[in-house]
């Protein structure tokens, strides 16, 4: 790819304007999915094209970009997207949550609380929370228009009848400002409480499905539940084996073929910062740091 042949942040200005208009309408109607004419990107659909288009439409030359996948900065797809913007926009990049002005993410919300002035861009595979209950777009659009969310409650309730609990552990649906039911992207439900009342702007891009939606800062976001079965964010019942964090979301890593395993923070920056501060976990002795 010859960088000079492409516009700043890859997209042409007309495409950026189209995406920008969709983002603004998304902010004005929190949780509502705005259709947009998603473009073919030089990475495959399903690999973050929606997030990439949103990021491209938001970036300024002064921005500092962080890209994570599964909470980690060094997963292959995160590396690939970060490189794409280093080449096409020439922006500074970082792995530190606090230093970033724009964070593109797949499947996680950073552990460290975000601040005003930060933008969190989510990559979304299936933006329609009702899609697995009703495959037809024409139907789900009507359901949102009429605020007809009974089907979703029936599904969650059937879970309870069958399993004794709501059997959705990620992409757990939320209701935004008491109006639209929204898919938070496939983040673990552990992250759901961070969606609401967040100081940062949260933008969601679904490229293949051609939808953009948004949560302004401090928006009210409620995970769907029932009085007798309240929503519970959950994580592995362990501390991080590297940094000792008790309240972060953990990845389970299989260490041998005899059932050995360790639990480590999925947010690599969070874990590394804690270790840099001298905090230690079960399997991370002082000298190994």
């Amino acid at each position, binding site marked *: 790819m010859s960088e000079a042949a*492409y516009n700043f942040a*890859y997209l*042409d200005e007309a495409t950026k304007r189209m995406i920008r208009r969709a983002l603004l309408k998304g902010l004005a109607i929190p949780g509502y999915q705005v*259709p*947009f*004419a*998603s*473009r*073919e*990107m030089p990475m*495959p*659909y*399903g*690999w973050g*094209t929606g997030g990439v288009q949103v990021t491209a439409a938001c970036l300024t030359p002064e921005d500092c970009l962080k890209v994570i*996948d*599964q909470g*980690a900065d*060094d*997963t*292959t*797809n*995160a*590396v*690939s997207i970060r*490189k794409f913007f280093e080449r096409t926009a020439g922006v500074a990049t970082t792995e530190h949550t606090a230093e970033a002005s724009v964070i593109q993410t*797949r*499947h*996680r919300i950073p552990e460290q609380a975000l601040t005003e002035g930060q933008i969190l861009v989510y990559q979304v*595979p299936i933006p329609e929370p009702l899609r697995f209950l009703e495959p*037809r*777009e*024409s139907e789900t659009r009507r359901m949102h228009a009429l605020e007809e969310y009974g089907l979703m409650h029936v599904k969650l309730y059937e879970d309870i009848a069958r399993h*004794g*609990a709501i059997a959705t*552990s*990620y*992409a757990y649906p939320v209701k935004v400002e008491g109006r639209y039911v929204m898919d938070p992207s*496939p*983040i*673990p*439900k*552990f992250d759901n409480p961070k969606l609401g009342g967040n100081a940062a702007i949260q933008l969601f891009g679904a490229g*293949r499905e*051609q*939808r953009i939606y948004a949560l302004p800062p401090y928006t009210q976001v409620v995970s769907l539940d029932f009085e007798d079965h309240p929503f519970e964010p*959950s994580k*592995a019942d362990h501390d991080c084996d590297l940094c000792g964090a008790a309240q972060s*979301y*953990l*990845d*389970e*890593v299989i*260490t041998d073929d005899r059932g050995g395993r*360790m639990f*480590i923070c*999925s947010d690599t920056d969070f874990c590394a910062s804690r270790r840099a501060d001298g905090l230690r976990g079960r*399997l*991370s002795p002082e000298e*190994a740091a």
Partner: protein
Amino acid sequence: MYVATKGGERAIEAAHQWLAEARRGDPAVPELSIAQIREQMTLAVNRVMAEGSLYDPDLAALAIKQARGDLIEAIFLIRAYRTTLPRFGGALPVETDEMAVTRRISATFKDVPGGQVLGPTFDYTHRLLDFALMADGDAPQAARKPAETQPVPHILQLLDRDGLMEPLTQGEATPPDLTREPLEMPADRPLRLQALARGDEGFVLSMAYSTQRGYGRTHAFVGELRIGTCAVEMEIPELGFAVEIGEIELTECETVNQFTGSKTEPAQFTRGYGLVMGQSERKAISMSLVDRALRWDELGEENTGAPAQDAEFVLYHCDNIQATGFLEHIKLPHYVDFQSELELIRKLRRDAGAETCKEAAE
């Protein structure tokens, strides 16, 4: 310390180097030129142009080379390139009536004005491997007759004249463009045709085949299939008239299908339509069958629940670039989601176990 995902950047680079080496294959074998692919893999080039929605044989050939012959990957390269191109304007509709045909057949009439032209077809060849092609040989020469200079009329016009065909309606509006506007349901016919023209040949073929096997049957005959070149013209505002900006090869198929009509209106044949860039007749015929099946509503037919009658199903799933991307994305790490599923299933089993113990104790 065990962290499997570290070193992503180095791994990606090494994989890409390996890919480049694998693409070239044995360096003792001469490298393929773009011209060789363009001239000798023409139908692959045509498919990449049609589904990539970009008429440029050289770029399509380059994409095929770069993609190691993986046509969907080549189509993807072309689509990603196409989307960055500036738009200078829209061409006038191409006049397929004026097509310089290299192939033109009708299954509905034995002979037709303008004649049947078989052209360079696989039809009636015996599918036997020609081992002579393994050796270099002289370029074969075909017998020639002078090119048809008169425009060749569309065969369905002949039926039209007698009022036997459903009349063509001239749309006024500029057709929508799904590469510039998000796909919206219900989709009208121009939008459906655009989606099908870019759609995956295999998908459209299977959908068309399903209608022949009874899932939304439309009783189709190939009224006319024609392949040839058409002039592309564009209005230049500064000039105030249209100028020819080039020629493209097209394949057009019009099917004659079973009737509409009622007690009050006399029966008429109905139409299905397919138009594809390049020589892609399997695709054009498939497209016209699926187009016809999708028209059930406007023609007052019953929705039998057949997949090919379901515009949402067909249009949302016919694009191989969308499909392959989403399909292959499940190769990406999903361990955060999977971890949350693990925790959930452990919890459910723990709760169920506690229940069972309690029951056993009681």
